[in-house]
């Protein structure tokens, strides 16, 4: 017997009472329908039927009050069985043999109601009632040619059938209950496992967040502590150059200018490194990102430089992807800024196109700039990886930069489980292509 909640017991009691009412109503309906065929005397059974149906409906409505009184239920059920036997007797008794099947219902209901050995009690109450009915009918049966031995055989068969039915209901119910208990246990087990996994995940997320915060504060401190003295060196050297430059020899001036240039370059590297960290470490929700809007925005921001270079920017239709908008905006802006930097003044052309490649949405930025020598095409995506100044002369001057822009692009797209590649040849322009999962889930 599995432990069951009071609520569960009430629900079962209500179900059993409703099924009993429905069964009795059907039985009554059958009797009414066949009254002409079997010559039933409705007046003798109608009060019993309606009484039982109403009693069961009342019981269903008040299940919460009586469901826990086991003994009272036994007595009522037994009374119902006896009442059914009286009905059977009034409908013709043993002669209406087929109606014997109606005993199956109280037995099954008893299983629903109690789920214990009470089924055998009810089965035997039914068998005894049946025997009593035969005893009442014995002279009439004898008149019909059913003798005493046959009557005893009928009663024995009734005992056997009803007890087998009870055995069947009991075993079947037992298996169902076992199954339910097992299911409940499994659900509880699984719930516990899930809770544990969730807890572990939450802990991991917290640890990761702490780590992130630690890293952030580390980079922040390093940046400040490295940059502050460097900026003081720069200011001081620049001050000497401004104030006393005239008093220095040409060589001395050169040296001082070199200090300013080198320190300035280092400061730019720290600034860009910090920028990369700032962009790639910022937590951001994944949303539907309109790449077209990001490109338009980047072009708008670069408008003065585009105008200054007299470059032509052509943008094709672009898809939406799922991703981190702010980071993707930086990646796209870096690619466009880069392209603009390397195209020649006057006839620069930058084309932004899109496509689909193996489940990935692609965004390509093609320029007609100076191109990238093959030897450097791999490391341009590394932090501080850039083509030496001598090999990237645009309009007579080396293009400036510390080599962090493409590293940011690579980190951003890889965080989206995408990739970036480049196709380029010196003097023939470059084409950078982002591959982003077309419908990435957050």
């Amino acid at each position, binding site marked *: 017997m599995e432990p069951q909640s009071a609520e569960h017991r009430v629900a079962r009691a209500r179900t059993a009472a409703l099924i009993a009412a429905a069964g009795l109503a059907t039985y009554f309906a059958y009797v009414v329908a066949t009254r002409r065929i079997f010559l039933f005397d409705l007046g003798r059974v109608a009060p019993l039927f309606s009484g039982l149906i109403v009693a069961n409906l009342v019981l269903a409505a008040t299940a919460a009050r009586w469901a826990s009184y086991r003994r009272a239920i036994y007595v009522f059920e037994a009374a119902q069985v006896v009442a059914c036997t009286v009905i059977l007797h009034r409908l013709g008794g043993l002669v209406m043999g087929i109606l014997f099947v109606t005993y199956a219902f109280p037995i099954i209901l008893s299983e629903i109601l109690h789920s214990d050995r009470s089924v055998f009690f009810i089965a035997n109450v039914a068998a005894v009632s049946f025997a009593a009915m035969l005893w009442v009918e014995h002279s009439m049966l004898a008149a019909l040619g059913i003798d005493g031995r046959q009557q005893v055989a009928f009663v024995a068969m009734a005992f056997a059938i009803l007890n087998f039915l009870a055995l069947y209901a009991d075993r079947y119910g037992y298996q169902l209950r076992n199954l339910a208990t097992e299911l409940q246990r499994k659900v509880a087990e699984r719930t516990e496992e899930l809770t544990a996994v969730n807890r572990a995940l939450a802990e991991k997320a917290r640890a990761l967040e702490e780590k992130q915060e630690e890293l952030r504060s580390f980079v922040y401190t390093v940046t400040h502590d490295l940059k502050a*003295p460097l*900026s003081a060196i720069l200011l001081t050297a620049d001050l000497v150059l401004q104030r006393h430059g005239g008093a220095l020899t040409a060589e001395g001036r050169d040296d001082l200018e070199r200090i300013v240039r080198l320190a300035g370059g280092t400061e730019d590297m720290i600034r860009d490194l910090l920028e990369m960290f700032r962009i790639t470490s910022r937590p951001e929700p994944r949303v539907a990102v309109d790449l077209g809007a990001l490109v338009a925005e980047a072009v708008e921001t670069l408008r003065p430089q585009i105008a200054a270079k007299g470059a032509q920017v052509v943008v094709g239709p672009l898809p939406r992807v799922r991703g981190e908008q702010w980071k993707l905006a930086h990646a796209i802006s870096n690619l466009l800024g880069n392209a603009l930097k390397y195209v020649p003044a006057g006839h620069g052309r930058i084309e932004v196109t899109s496509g689909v490649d193996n489940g990935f949405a692609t965004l390509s930025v093609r320029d007609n700039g100076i191109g990238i020598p093959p030897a450097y095409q791999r490391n341009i995506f590394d932090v501080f990886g850039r083509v030496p100044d001598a090999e990237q002369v645009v309009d007579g001057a080396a293009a400036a930069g510390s080599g962090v822009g493409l590293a940011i692009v690579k980190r951003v797209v890889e965080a989206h489980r995408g990739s970036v590649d480049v196709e380029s040849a010196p003097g023939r322009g470059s084409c950078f292509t982002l591959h982003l999962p077309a419908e990435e889930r957050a």
Partner: protein
Amino acid sequence: MTVDVLVVDDNQGFLRAVRAVLADTFVVHTVENGAEALAFLDRRPPFVDAPRPAFVVLDFHLPDMNAPAVLGHLAADAGLRAIPVLVLSQADWDEDAAAARDAGARAFQVKPSRVHALRDAVVAFWEEHGHAGPGAAGRR
């Protein structure tokens, strides 16, 4: 007519450079941390004779407190609240800029590391915000 400016920064090299760069334009006072800055503004020892600066140039990261904390103290004092403050930082972190502005800074920018850029930044700030400040009112 002189304009007093208080520059708060923990890097002595920067303070030395800033004094040299701004000396032609302003009377430059320098202190190296937040506590000294507040003592200077409150005219507490050792700054009992300090003038009321027309504006303040404040480093975001000071050894004892950050710029928003200093600005918080200023905001709590009716006499100091109106002094325009330019916050300089080594990095243009959005959250630092927002924190400084929320605390009452008139401007936030990356610390320039060239002489001309530094002078231009401070002078531009003074021209934009100075005349609304109490120093400017005193001169009228």
